[in-house]
């Protein structure tokens, strides 16, 4: 398992980069924000991405996917992180398709995966309930009822929840947590769109006696809790790949500005104090690259080490995105504080992805517990 991407993955990465640079620069996110777009993403863009197969990389060929693996998907995520492309890639492909592929039965897979692969179906992952990520403490209940379950509870910060066709809902049964595949138009579901600081869209979703049939459970994994954790770890790693893109883009722009901006008659990049800070960031980013590629490969290798790698990735990338986006603003100075300059978009996204699927504190704590301290 060499820690480099192969030629095919490199080619994929290059085409995604070129495509997004053209079709989805930061201006596109700004446009969605300023026009108060009701979906919060560019549907046409999503269709194009689907046509190129980029939303089906982790879906088996049998279900209309490319079975290209998570290392490949990671390259796409990284590039969307560079351009801050608003799309259902994380919610639908990274999280939901993964959960269904790992834990769904044949019928469920057939009913969902091909449509995700085609870009025709949005599936949101409804997990969080409180202020903080706490997946081992689910309050939403799934009470056994004739032929199925009744779901009750409230979910928050559901990525793309307001445009989703289906939801995967984590809920507690008598036998522990299970993931349920539910249509968003089922009776008893109330969705409230929330606009987040990164100009992306989340939803708070209320479940009042929502009836789901027995067949709604993703029951083919060793347990619901194990399925949830595996899905989350894969999600954390994919999110870290996205963060890596954002980190690199922020850094590249900052270094470019250091070379271009003059103060006191010289380039500010010639100030040694700023040079050392930039060099330090460079080192941090190289460390980030290593854990992201290592963790992505570990998904494809179905490694037992995934929980450790996922937490390392999410912890480090969260810290680094925070650091690099703060340094970016500081280097840009006043102009960086204006909405007109694009660097501000990165600090906003940085804080949102930091919170998603557990922040750095959460994951360092998790790592400490793994080590028995």
């Amino acid at each position: 398992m060499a820690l480099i991407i192969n030629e095919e993955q490199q080619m994929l990465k290059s085409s995604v980069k070129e495509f997004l640079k053209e079709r989805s620069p930061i201006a596109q996110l700004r446009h969605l924000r300023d026009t108060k777009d009701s979906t919060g993403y560019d549907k046409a863009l999503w269709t194009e991405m689907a046509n190129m197969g980029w939303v089906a990389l982790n879906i088996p060929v049998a279900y209309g996917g490319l079975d290209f693996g998570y290392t490949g998907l990671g390259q796409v995520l990284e590039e969307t992180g560079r351009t801050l492309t608003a799309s259902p890639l994380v919610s639908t492909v990274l999280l939901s398709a993964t959960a269904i592929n790992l834990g769904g039965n044949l019928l469920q897979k057939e009913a969902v995966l091909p449509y995700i692969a085609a870009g025709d179906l949005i599936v949101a992952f409804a997990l969080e309930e409180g202020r903080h990520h706490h997946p081992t403490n689910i309050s939403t209940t799934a009470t056994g009822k004739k032929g199925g379950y009744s779901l009750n509870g409230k979910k928050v910060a559901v990525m793309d929840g307001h445009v989703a066709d289906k939801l995967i809902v984590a809920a507690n049964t008598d036998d522990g947590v299970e993931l349920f595949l539910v249509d968003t138009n089922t009776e008893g579901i109330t969705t409230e769109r929330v606009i987040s600081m990164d100009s992306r869209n989340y939803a708070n979703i209320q479940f009042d006696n929502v009836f789901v049939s027995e067949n709604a459970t993703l029951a083919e994994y060793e347990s619901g809790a194990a399925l949830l954790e595996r899905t989350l770890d894969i999600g954390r790693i994919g999110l870290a790949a996205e963060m890596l893109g954002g980190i690199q883009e922020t850094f590249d722009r900052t270094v470019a500005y250091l070379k271009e901006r003059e103060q006191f008659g010289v380039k500010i990049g010639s100030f040694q104090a700023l040079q050392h800070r930039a060099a330090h960031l460079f080192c941090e980013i190289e460390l980030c690259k290593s854990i992201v590629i290592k963790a992505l490969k570990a998904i494809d290798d179905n490694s037992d080490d995934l929980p450790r790698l996922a937490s390392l990735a999410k912890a480090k990338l969260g810290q680094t995105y925070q650091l690099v986006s703060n340094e970016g603003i500081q280097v840009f100075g006043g102009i960086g504080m204006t909405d007109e300059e694009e660097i501000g978009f990165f600090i906003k996204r940085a804080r949102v992805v930091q919170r998603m699927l557990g922040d750095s504190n959460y994951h360092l704590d998790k790592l400490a517990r793994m080590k028995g301290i």
Partner: protein
Amino acid sequence: MIATKTDVKTFRGEVTTWLEENYPASLRQPISSYKDFFWGGRNQEDVTDDLKLWFNRCYEKGWVVPHWEKKYGGGGLTLKENTIIAEEMSKIGARAPLQSFGVSMLGPALLKFGSEEQKMKYLNEITSGKIRWVQGYSEPGAGSDLAGLQTKAEDKGDHYLVNGQKIWTSFGDKGDWIFALVRTHPDRPKHHGISFLLIDMATEGVSTRPIKLISGVSVFTETFFDNVKVPKENLVGTEGEGWTIAKYLLTHERQMIGGIGDAHKPTPLTQIAGEKVGLTNGILSDTLLRSKIMNFEMNEALLEMTIERAIDEAKAGNDAGALSSLFKYVATEQNKTRYELKMEMEGFDGLEWESEASKNGALPREFLRTKANTIEGGTSEVMLNIISKRILGLPSR
């Protein structure tokens, strides 16, 4: 004039009584926006009657700026008395009667460098709330290199002809007059060619454009000068003295931003952490956050003591001026950390940008605003340069 401890006590008593009787009940609640202040000026936005009442009561008493001379609309009080009034106002959470860059920024400059005519006219216009001032220092592309400014004022006999552009003029679209640094002598070394000019923004050729910040708010503008005629008597000090005046004022500004005299102490994070994050076995559930909070709160307590110490040093006649860069640097870095930690504590709730529950994203917007703390009024890097050169005496290359 007060001299003895008994005098102080008596004066303080009088202040308390007056405030009790005169501070309007409706203003005894937290401030949520800049609109909750009386700003004065020709373009004063709608303010409540009580805000006006409060301003007028203070103005009659000379307490808009208690320590300015009475002929300038002040109260003719000593600095000590001024402090007592400020302290007592702070105790009951009273707002300043007038929110004004004229008081905090232009006033000190005029008092030190202005002519008697200028003082009479402009200080009275400030204290009476007639004219709202804005600051015109920064220029696009200038940044920390303030002295590199390009806005030029050509000598045309009885007036200057001003052309150029300023940026980061706070409320530039709401102000009446602007005090601006302009280049009168392009031939001189850059620090010596700058003058300090007062410009009526109603003059032909002055226009403004709001700047939207990453927090989504627009409190700053760009201000453009297109062949603006400014009478010669609007020069403060002498030609070429502008940089000296600006430096004098920057020290004031840094002290303000650095938090000296900031009466409104933020709630300690230790006080809100438990509710936001929860406890396990009696300690904060998130032990990594706990560690960061305690380091932050330690420095916060020490910063407060350092301000106290600086005041005591000053009282004792020791030179504590060198500490102003320290306050600016430490206080602004601390404030950024405070908001990072608030964001950590608030979790998903702190990400909401437009919801009612989040008061229209109050926290994330404030958080983003703090990122400017270490840029405006002298960047952290400039502060560190000043400390290393002026205080530590480290050599230049």
